[in-house]
């Protein structure tokens, strides 16, 4: 970590160490060079997971995920960091555990599954959320029953945590993970969340229910959300449509009042989904690429 751009940015570390999630749109501002190649500094980052400076540990965990360091030693060190007790926020959160869980989701090593399932019981909401997202990314169905237990009590229990800016459980992440993991047994438990009072939770339910039932009714609700009054919600609906690969949404996506980079990513999701069963010269593939060209 010797180049200036890769030094821990203290202001940034402190921002991330608060109870906030990482802004999903941040990627657009990162220079393309930052995405490149296998970093020689990986061993240093692994060692830094035990650095005496807690902000350096926190940064190292993020860094290993960011640069996809799929080394066995890195994975083991991150799994160990899921039990960290040293790095605590004023509100009792576990910043290092959060980042370790996020990183493990990016590294694709299923050895992390059991430890991530245990994180679903962590007292820190953001650790549970990061674990659910990582389990979704790892794609291992063994976590389904543990995820389902976070939906216990149904919509009635799914209230805001007193005095906190989030619900009592990371419903959005849990429901999305269940959809991605093809947990068809979860349909009846998820269905009521399509009427939840929080828009993001509703979208997550629509997305998941479409994946589990292939009923266009749910996908069309997401298309409707593309004209939501808040740009964050429009971005979120775009990402959902990209994730489920709902090709009939293509024109609505291209016209949504959202930055082109988000629309390109969503259309890429549609095209990738389409190409899994069709070739690149199908009418729909050409139409999708022609739309993508207009967004460059």
């Amino acid at each position, binding site marked *: 970590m010797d180049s200036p751009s890769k030094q821990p940015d203290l202001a940034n570390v402190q921002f991330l160490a608060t109870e906030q999630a990482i802004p999903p749109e941040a990627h657009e501002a990162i220079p393309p060079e930052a995405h490149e190649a296998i970093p020689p500094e990986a061993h240093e980052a692994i060692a830094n997971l035990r650095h005496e400076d807690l902000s350096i540990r926190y940064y190292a965990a993020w860094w290993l995920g960011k640069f996809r360091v799929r080394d066995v030693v890195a994975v083991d060190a991150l799994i160990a960091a899921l039990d960290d007790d040293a790095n605590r926020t004023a509100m009792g959160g576990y910043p290092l555990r959060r980042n370790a869980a996020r990183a493990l989701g990016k590294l694709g090593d299923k050895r992390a599954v059991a430890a991530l399932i245990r994180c679903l019981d962590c007292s820190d909401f953001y650790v549970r959320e990061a674990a659910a997202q990582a389990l979704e990314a790892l794609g291992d169905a063994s976590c389904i029953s543990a995820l389902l237990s976070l939906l216990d009590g149904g919509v009635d229990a799914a209230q805001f945590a007193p005095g906190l800016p989030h619900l009592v459980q990371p419903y959005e992440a849990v429901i999305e993970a269940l959809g991605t993991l093809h947990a068809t047994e979860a349909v009846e438990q998820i269905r009521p969340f399509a009427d939840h009072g929080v828009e993001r939770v509703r979208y997550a339910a629509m997305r998941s229910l479409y994946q589990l039932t292939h009923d266009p009714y749910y996908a069309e609700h997401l298309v409707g959300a593309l004209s939501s009054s808040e740009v964050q919600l429009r971005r979120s609906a775009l990402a959902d449509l990209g994730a489920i690969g709902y090709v009939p949404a293509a024109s609505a996506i291209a016209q949504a009042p959202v930055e*082109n980079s988000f629309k390109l990513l969503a259309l890429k999701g549609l*095209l990738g989904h389409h190409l899994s069963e069709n070739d690149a010269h199908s009418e729909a593939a050409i139409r999708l690429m022609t739309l993508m060209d207009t967004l460059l």
Partner: protein
Amino acid sequence: MIATDPAIEPLITAIAQADSPATLIGAVRALAQTASLSAIPTLIEVLGYNNPGAASVAVAGLVQMGEAAVPLLLEQIDDYNYGARASSLRALAAIADPRAFEVLLEAAATDFAPSVRRAAIKGLGTLRWQPRDLDGQPSIHDRTVSTLLLVSHDSDWTIRYAAIAAFQSWIFTLQNCSETTDLTRQALERLEHLRQTDEDEVVRARASMAQHQLTIVPYAQ
């Protein structure tokens, strides 16, 4: 803000007073529809409002103005707001006036923001060159193709995708131009290589579409 056309002053005021994203977009659309050249500075200003809906309406309006908007677009590129810069370059790329060449070339290769680079790269493929532009500047096509070749190796799939789209339109426009035979060959080789070996299926598909639309490879393949 110079409003020499009194009819548009209330429309400009409406943009300044818009109190929601929806009213802003409506006000920008109303101004763009006047197609008055006096609207150009305000439309450019809207690109910096960080409102993607309003920006795309403003870009469409500027594109409709065509060449008349080019000098101000070039002059007022926002070096500190990459969202605004991407919109300006999108407008310049769509107008396709060769005066934008140097700006597009530099942004394609060196801008830090992928959205800006994509717009610039696409524009490099679509500029409407006239024989008089090329007099005394034989290197224009060399520089275009070498920049497209360079960016077609970028790690960001959207940049490689944009490079393919640009190659396609550049080859299509110049395929009957004998001076560019060697450059065309290089571009075609790169397209073929991307179609076969790119790690991203969407990039491979786009290269394949480029080849087909240039009728280099039969559709059946």
